[in-house]
């Protein structure tokens, strides 16, 4: 069974540019999560999709971040315009429908904003 995949693995952009991160969850997983780890800090929650609906977006830092999950399959996270403090590792995770289920993480996208 394929795991959670993320694309790209690395991205280097300049301040003010736009970047779009993609996450493909494990097949059949209705729950999809985005997390972020900035340098020296713990992994922090960004948002949670159930199928195509946003269940909890309390962790989204500001309106420069836009997450979508069209059709309830893959998800994208767009940062526009990117700022220096957006640098970090963005992880995606997925789990089956029951909330108590384990979340399985992807390898992450390493974003550097210069």
């Amino acid at each position, binding site marked *: 069974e394929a795991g959670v995949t993320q694309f790209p693995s690395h991205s280097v952009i300049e301040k003010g540019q736009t970047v779009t991160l993609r996450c493909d969850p494990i097949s059949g997983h209705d729950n999809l999560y985005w997390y972020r780890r900035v340098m020296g800090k713990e992994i922090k929650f960004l948002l*949670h999709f159930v199928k195509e609906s946003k269940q909890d977006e*309390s962790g989204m830092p500001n309106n420069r971040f836009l997450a979508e999950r069209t059709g309830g399959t893959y998800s994208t996270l767009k940062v526009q315009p990117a700022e220096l403090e957006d640098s970090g590792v963005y*992880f995606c995770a997925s789990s089956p429908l029951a909330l108590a289920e384990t979340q399985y993480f992807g390898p992450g996208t390493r974003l550097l904003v210069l």
Partner: protein
Amino acid sequence: EDQVTQSPEALRLQEGESSSLNCSYTVSGLRGLFWYRQDPGKGPEFLFTLYSAGEEKEKERLKATLTKKESFLHITAPKPEDSATYLCAVRRGSNTGKLIFGQGTTLQVKP
């Protein structure tokens, strides 16, 4: 406020030297405590889920335990391949799957 604190931040062991990692938590209505292992440049890899005080789970050289305030990850006779960052996370009782992570303990096992 929900909080997860892991200690120590870093731990260096000799191969075969057993030890324990600590995860202290404050959360309203615990709905699961999770242990993950993370290798450099990779995503967190699931190890265990514990749901109630007194619960224990084992996998190879690792054993996780849970009380009402903390969890321990016991490592028995570690090997160099156990070197990694170990992450603890909790999920609170609500209609979100949000995990709250600690900062992790980086373990180095020397041969």
